[in-house]
């Protein structure tokens, strides 16, 4: 896909400056709430007007402040899935889907029938949105969006208002939908799990600024920036001193580390995700002597807050360890050392 965005917008003391270009069919914008990610998505759809900048969708300029171009949302052919689906409450399922139809009048009825079948809404045509389950509502919203054959679809935090079981079911439905969908998708979310699951490419947004963008897995492996690492859910960081091309001294963990990546002079932090730490019994390279500061119990994992046993000072390290059973004693399996695998160490600026 080709969506090019370079926009600026000021509102209520907050300024948004987003600049990115997507090159894969599924792109995500990951940011905390208030980072301006929804504003960016709304600007692409034309619901919100940026103060300055340019937006190009598939080669068509839909917004350009210098050339005074600002296409109406109606003319952008962009599908938008709202967080609460924004189904029209006074219309039936059939009427809702019909609202998205663009084209010849005589084909309308047949096409609506087709979409009702395709989105498994048979028998619900005459129901109103309030009489539908969450999953059915999502399917109506998708059908209503897709019947107009949009060039790009935009999903605005589609799962953040849901919880537990329903969320899992709707994510599965969405995945099936996206597998069949051949066009381009862009999704806004504050959940790193959703971003990882649905988006091949990712743009990280913090306080209205684009941090970094790129391939999702590469970004999770090597976020390159401290802020980016935090946004993707990493909790363990230390300041570093460079020793040579592949060795650093981690100041806050009080230990020497060997890295896979070459250490550049601009790198001043190192980080590692809590799931990658390995318990070992013998002292060796990249091994941290363990002292448990605190223990927290997750549903399916133990969470230990660990410090270097040799020193009082320094940062804690979160270590996540999967449970074998609910009964096991969390302190029984505590090792003497934790191994920080060089391939999972992230050098950060």
């Amino acid at each position, binding site marked *: 896909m080709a969506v090019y965005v370079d926009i600026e917008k000021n509102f209520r003391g907050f300024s948004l400056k987003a600049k990115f270009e997507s090159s894969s069919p599924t792109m995500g914008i990951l940011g905390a709430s208030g980072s301006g990610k929804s504003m960016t998505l*709304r600007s692409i*759809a*034309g*619901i919100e007007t940026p103060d300055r900048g340019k937006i190009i969708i598939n080669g068509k300029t839909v917004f350009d402040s210098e050339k005074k171009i600002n296409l*109406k*949302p*109606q003319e*952008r*052919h*962009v*599908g*938008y899935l*709202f967080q*609460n689906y*924004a189904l*029209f*409450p*006074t*219309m039936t399922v059939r009427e809702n889907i019909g*609202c*998205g139809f*663009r084209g010849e009048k005589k084909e309308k009825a047949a096409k609506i029938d087709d979409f009702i079948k395709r989105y498994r809404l048979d028998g619900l045509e005459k129901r109103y949105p309030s009489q539908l389950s969450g999953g059915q509502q999502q399917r109506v919203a998708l059908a*209503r*969006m897709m019947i*107009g054959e949009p060039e790009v679809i935009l999903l605005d935090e589609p799962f953040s208002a849901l919880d537990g079981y329903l969320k899992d079911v709707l994510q599965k439905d969405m995945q099936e939908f996206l597998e069949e969908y051949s066009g381009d998708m862009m999704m806004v979310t504050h959940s790193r799990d959703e971003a990882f699951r649905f988006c091949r490419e990712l743009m990280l947004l913090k306080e209205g600024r684009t941090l970094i963008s790129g391939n999702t897995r590469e970004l999770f492996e090597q976020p390159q920036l401290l802020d980016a690492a935090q946004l993707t859910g990493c909790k363990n960081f230390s300041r570093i001193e460079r020793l040579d091309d592949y060795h650093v001294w981690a100041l806050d963990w009080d230990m020497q580390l060997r890295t896979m990546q070459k250490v550049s002079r601009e790198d001043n932090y190192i980080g590692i995700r809590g799931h990658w730490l390995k318990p070992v019994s013998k002292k060796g390279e990249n091994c941290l002597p363990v002292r448990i500061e605190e223990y927290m119990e997750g549903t399916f994992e133990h969470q230990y807050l660990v410090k270097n046993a040799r020193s009082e000072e320094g940062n804690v390290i979160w270590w996540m360890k999967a449970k074998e059973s609910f009964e096991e004693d969390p302190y029984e399996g505590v090792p003497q050392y934790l191994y920080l695998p060089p391939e999972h160490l992230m050098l950060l600026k």
Partner: protein
Amino acid sequence: MREFLQEINWSPLWISLKTGVVATVIAFFLGIFCARQAMKLKAGAKAVLDGILTLPLVLPPTVAGFILLMIFSLRRPFGAFLMENFDIKIVQTWKGCIIAAAVIAFPLMYRNARAAFEQVDVNLIYAGRTLGMSESHIFWRIIVPAAAPGIASGTVLAFARALGEYGATSMLAGNILGKTRTVSVAIASETAAGNYVTAAFWVCVIVSISFVIVALINIISGKGMKTRRWI
């Protein structure tokens, strides 16, 4: 009693009802139109427009009547202009009744419609736009139906107000039996003439109609809401 009912001139009731219906139709469309325009304004301009459009509700009706008289009097430019070019006379005619009632009833319609529009989720509008629907389609097919209970109660209130209008009507349209004498004007003039029985009869009529209207509002606006009692 039967004699009294046979002798009474029913024209004030019909004039009141006719005036009420026509004035409500005018207030309905004008109120919705103004509410829609107000929703597009920024906060400051909205407050000013809102204040102006609500004035007829808070001013004494005689003030509204005075202003209307100043506009439509045949001795004033606009009134003379209407008379000369279109042969339209507002003062002391049934048209005057309608205009007076519509002006007084308008703010009720406008305010209720605006309050109802404010309750409508803006994402519905945005959704309509991204789906390619035209603005008027979005307004009449999505927003108005979603705001229907508020609009309906505004309409009923406007009708009730138009039906009972006295102050502005008596100043602009006067008190001509069979032409501009509405029920409320009749009550005033019968009382002034000492015909308490006739006045009381009209009072009963207007009280019963008003009660039915208020009950109707409660039924309309209570629809879809949770009926929870305070115990």
